[in-house]
């Protein structure tokens, strides 16, 4: 009995480590390459550890490429888009969860429908909408922050998720607040929002993540290097450095680091959010 348990646990841990190797291995390899010299990656057989840690690769990335600018752009885009999404979606979600007004259900259905629209197919018409934006220069909004930020800022998913969250708050709290003289906005601001911090944080995290990692849209509207976001700059980087693997991997590591740090710092929230992503499929 005891022996078989040990056997079973050994097998389990073996499997766990195997899966870990598959998921984590590529990251380790990325990092190890990033701190090697170019000569180090050319040797055969390849070495896992560098013969000497070349931290200056990261310094080179920071000083010789336009990655810092792209970093800044991505940060601005992701932060503003996230702020817009959290604020406007929670307002709408509050109305859908708590208020009654004509056309409410139809409008909510429209919100749900927008979740099904494949964004990749929207790139062509959106590009021309940006280009022909009224009250702007000859190129419209192309190559500007509004084009990078606005089109995918508000998501139907955020409204849907927050509405689900808000519905779980007992209505007695609203009623009590109304008696105490709160208007609707005050109920929203002082009662609903503070009670749904995890849900709001979740929406914020996924908004930030999706804008930080977005590729196709910035590729389409960012025309000049000054407006490149981090993913586009990385791609340009690949052409620039061709097979200088340490530099490419140093760039990739630099770009991956903020999300990885955020992930570890906000671990409980992520864990809850990642598992909860499927909960939308229940109904």
């Amino acid at each position: 009995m005891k022996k078989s348990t040990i056997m079973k646990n050994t097998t389990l841990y073996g499997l766990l480590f195997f899966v870990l190797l598959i998921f984590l291995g590529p990251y380790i390899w990325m990092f190890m390459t990033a701190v090697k010299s170019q000569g180090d990656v050319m040797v055969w057989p390849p070495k896992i550890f560098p013969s000497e840690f070349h931290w200056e690769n990261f310094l080179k990335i920071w000083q010789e490429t336009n990655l810092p600018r792209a970093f800044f752009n991505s940060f601005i885009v992701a932060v503003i888009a996230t702020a817009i999404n959290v604020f406007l979606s929670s307002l709408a979600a509050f109305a859908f969860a708590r208020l009654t007004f004509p056309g409410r259900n139809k409008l909510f259905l429209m919100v749900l429908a927008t979740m099904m629209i494949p964004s990749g197919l929207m790139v062509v018409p959106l590009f021309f909408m940006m280009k022909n934006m009224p009250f702007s220069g000859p190129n419209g909004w192309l190559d500007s922050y509004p084009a990078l930020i606005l089109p995918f800022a508000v998501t139907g998913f955020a409204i849907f998720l927050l509405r689900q969250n808000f519905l779980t708050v007992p209505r007695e709290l609203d009623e009590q607040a109304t008696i105490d003289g709160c208007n609707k906005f005050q109920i929203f601001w002082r009662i609903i929002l503070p009670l749904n911090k995890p849900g709001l944080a979740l929406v914020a995290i996924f908004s930030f993540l999706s804008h930080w990692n977005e590729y196709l849209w910035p590729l389409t509207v960012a025309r000049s290097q000054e407006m490149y976001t981090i993913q586009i700059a990385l791609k340009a980087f690949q052409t620039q450095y061709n097979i200088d693997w340490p530099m490419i991997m140093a760039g990739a590591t630099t770009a991956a680091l903020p999300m990885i740090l955020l992930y570890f710092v906000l671990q409980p929230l992520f864990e809850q959010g990642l598992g909860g992503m499927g909960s939308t499929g229940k109904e």
Partner: protein
Amino acid sequence: MKTETVPSMNIKKAKNNRELHKFKDILGSYLFVLPALSFLFLFSIVPIIYLIWLSFTDYSLPNPAVFIGLENFSRMLEDKLFLKSIFNTLVYTFGSMALGLVFALAIAVLLNRQLKGLRIFKVFYFLPTITSEVITAMIFLWVFDNNLGILNYLLKVLGMENPPAWLLEPTTAMLILIFIGAWRGAAYNTPIFLAALQSVPQSYYEAARLDGANAWKQFIHISLPSITHMLVYSMVMSVIGSFQVVAVVDILTNGGPMDSTMVAIKHIWQQSFEFNYVGYGASLSLVLFPFLLLITWLQLKLSSRKES
């Protein structure tokens, strides 16, 4: 309190007041939804209408769009690359979806137990989900490099004389693409399945054990049916996501070798923005639109039939 002492207020006035109040109420409610809904309307609904219009035009910058009827659509039928890109996308989508979901389920089952240190493993398993497609593709470009890549070195150590030049041959290039899709998909879906598995009541398993069901039977007869809705959901989301794959392809193969990894969105993007056939690019997008919705609808339909 004071209003109670005003007996002179006539009924009509009160009614008017109430209606005004109601009107204000409704107006107030719309103020809550209007900002978000204008965003969605402007950037989700309007583009669809615009897309429909564009797809009936011949539009090459800087010339204005010219209405040409169905010409774009007849052109599509002769566009071999379009058909190939659809075929490639389907192969990628179903390959990566099947592999990704099977692995996600297996890993979720592996994680769904009491074991020391499991949390640490879980934390690292989810990393690919937060890493961008571009970065992922760059890492694997390096791993699968045919000269200096670590994989071919390992294969040689394991005794393979001539490991393939993965990204330079059509079949293996597609396989690598599917592998990366599955790698991301497995990481993404594992926590979803794990959450679903954990919500299955333990008493079901205890009852089954009393009936003498082994682990495999418990999985088939209890776990699997309990998470069917989640499986279907993940399938639908995988199809919608995988169908729009483009970043990984751009970094890894740029559609090659010999268009073997040319995928639908990349083809549309090339036609629209590299070759400047905007109208044609729009019509390609429009054709894929119902196609994607159809797949989604079919999957939901099939699953509901199975359940009933």
